[in-house]
């Protein structure tokens, strides 16, 4: 269980409160207006932000003392998910060992992960020689290798076209299945939420609500969400 208890964050005019629980293996979309605190919520779980008050825990373990890299979390950002000066294989290999001292079996694992995301022969290339969709696949291959129980995504596919995006969401779904990860994904697109997430957290007016079934929520949105969805 991922638990955020009595969380309170404030920075200048901005404030966010959260008190919610997410079951292991759940797929949760996070939607809400710009600036409402969707990314802040992810940063809290990912460890880039410390709350003024409250608890973040996973399966009973307090996450707050842990640095981002020590948390049971993989993070896909909006951009800058790859180091441009490292090869595709190195970028993926960082998921196994940050010092990149990979043994033969670990290198085989990297190759295997690349094959699974459909980039079998791309290992030696640099990210700049890949298309946007392929770059997303590299980042997903690393997520697959790290196999952390929590996967946080901050609109990672927003720069891709609709067809490519649904392809990526399908790949993401397979990877989450394989690693049995709990997935939280910030999105602007209610279609993404319907397609990918059985539950949805609405963030609005300084509050992150508890997750609700996506279908019911979007079919019959409360007033604030309706205003946002238009």
């Amino acid at each position, binding site marked *: 269980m991922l638990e955020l208890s009595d969380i309170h964050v404030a920075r200048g005019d901005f404030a966010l409160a959260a008190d919610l629980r997410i079951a292991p293996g759940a797929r949760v979309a996070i939607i809400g207006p710009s600036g409402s605190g969707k990314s802040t919520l992810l940063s809290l779980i990912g460890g880039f932000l410390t709350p003024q008050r409250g608890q973040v825990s996973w399966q009973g373990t307090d996450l707050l003392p842990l640095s981002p890299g020590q948390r049971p979390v993989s*993070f896909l950002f909006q951009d*800058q998910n790859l180091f441009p*000066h490292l090869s595709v294989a190195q970028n993926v290999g*960082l998921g196994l060992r940050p010092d990149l001292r990979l043994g033969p079996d670990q290198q085989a694992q990297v190759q295997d992960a690349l094959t699974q995301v459909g980039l079998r022969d791309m290992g030696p290339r640099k990210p700049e020689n890949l298309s946007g969709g392929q770059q997303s696949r590299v980042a997903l291959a690393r997520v697959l290798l790290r196999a952390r129980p929590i996967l946080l995504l901050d609109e990672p596919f927003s720069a891709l076209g609709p067809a490519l995006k649904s392809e990526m969401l399908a790949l993401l779904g397979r990877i989450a299945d394989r690693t049995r990860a709990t997935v939280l994904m910030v999105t602007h697109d209610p279609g993404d939420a319907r397609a990918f997430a059985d539950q949805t957290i609405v963030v609005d007016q300084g509050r992150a609500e508890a997750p609700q079934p996506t279908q019911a929520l979007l079919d019959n949105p409360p007033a604030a969400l309706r205003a946002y969805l238009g």
Partner: protein
Amino acid sequence: MAAGVFGLRDRAAGAALAAGLATLILGTLIAVALQARGLSGLGPWDWRAVWFTLWQAALSAALSALLAVPVARALARRRFPGRAALVTLLGAPFILPVIVAIMGLIAVFGRNGALNDGLRLIGLPEFSVYGWQGVILAHVFFNLPLSVRLILQGWQAIPAERFRLAESLGFGPADIARHLERPMLRAVLPGVWLAVFLVCLTSFTVALALGGGPSATTVELAIYQAFRFDFDLGRAATLGLVQIGLCVAAMGLARWIAVPAAFGAGIASQQGPRGPRGWRVGADIAAILLAAGFLLWPILAVTIQGLPRIPLLPPEVWQATLRSVVMALVSAVLSISLGLVLALSIARGRAAWIELAGMLPLVASPLVLGTGLFILLRGWLSPDDMALPVTVAINAIMALPFGLRSLIPAARDLRADYGRLAESLNLHGMARLRYLTLPRLARPLGFAGGLAAALAMGDLGVITLFATNDPTLPLKLYQLMNSYRMQDAAACAVLLMAISFLLFWLFDRGGRLA
């Protein structure tokens, strides 16, 4: 917990280094202060040095800034083949060894130089390159190019749309000057003046080689003379305090006048304003030719004189060369290591004092630091033992502010772009250095290393304090000049210039290729 420990260690390293640097510099200054005897210890000779330091710096700065205006204007509004090369060349004096330039100026403006040949021919009195006029000539030689680049930057900062508007309103050159150019110059020139003034305030090598005597001694030179000739540490220290006071006061001026970044910008290739026709074409051509000639002629003169004689140089010159190259490399590695750790700390934010510590070398002149370190170390080391290590250390420290100027913004970008990704992958310690920091910062590191190596290679400053039997190449060159072996000195100068530029090029190129 490994990451936490590494994180802590990274953070502590930056703070510790900054504290060490501040302690070294401030401690050295305190050692100087404790040795000083109060201003009453200074004689009329010393006060003349203070006075000369101030007025020569003011005059050098004014001449450089004013002479730069027509050159910058010509470069801003004319397009010609070689223009980009010329603007790049204007950045070269920054890493040109001072003593080499002095050799060049002597070759052109000295007794047997072309200028005096010409003057004699038409029966005019000779010009002497020694004395206050020589000091100012050399300062203008070094700072005119810098000023041109800084002012050119101002010209290029005027939006092209504004020139188009002026054109569509039918402005003549006088109108453009009045509405566009003069307001820009009013904003830019004070900063240019102050930048040059600061450089000339701590002038040592120029005054050592061309000045001296009651009418052309700077405070830095007076420190050297008190130290070397009178071995009067008290007076040297008192003068050191005066020098620090001058620097701090001048830096204080920078609170009201923005000093532009050191080297000026490159050139934007965008189409600038179209220059006016008529006699102004000739005037612009003349400005560019005069400036290029003033810059290139001395260097060409010394090269022609010295190049053929390089193979004939005595073995002790080659020993000095090797010594200097090793010292320059050590200095450069020290300087960029220090700069890297400080820049990474500064990029993490919060600790403004670390940035301040990195800029401290700007108020401490090399001779003052050298005097202070001598005072601190003399119980343990002989002057001969400390000459080379102290020189290496001071050169590394003096290059630090210039390196930090390129490293700090790059480190900030690195953190903004990849800091979170690195954190989330637990990339720390050596792995982070190897796979993230060094590859991403290779360019600014190469540039900073090149500056540090070239500056250390060409420096003739603190080493002169110590009567060493192991001279560096610039010191060897100075010794040759003093024994009137001008042919060998010229060959030495060519060698020194070539190695300085080569070192800069190698580091800078290495950083670009990495």
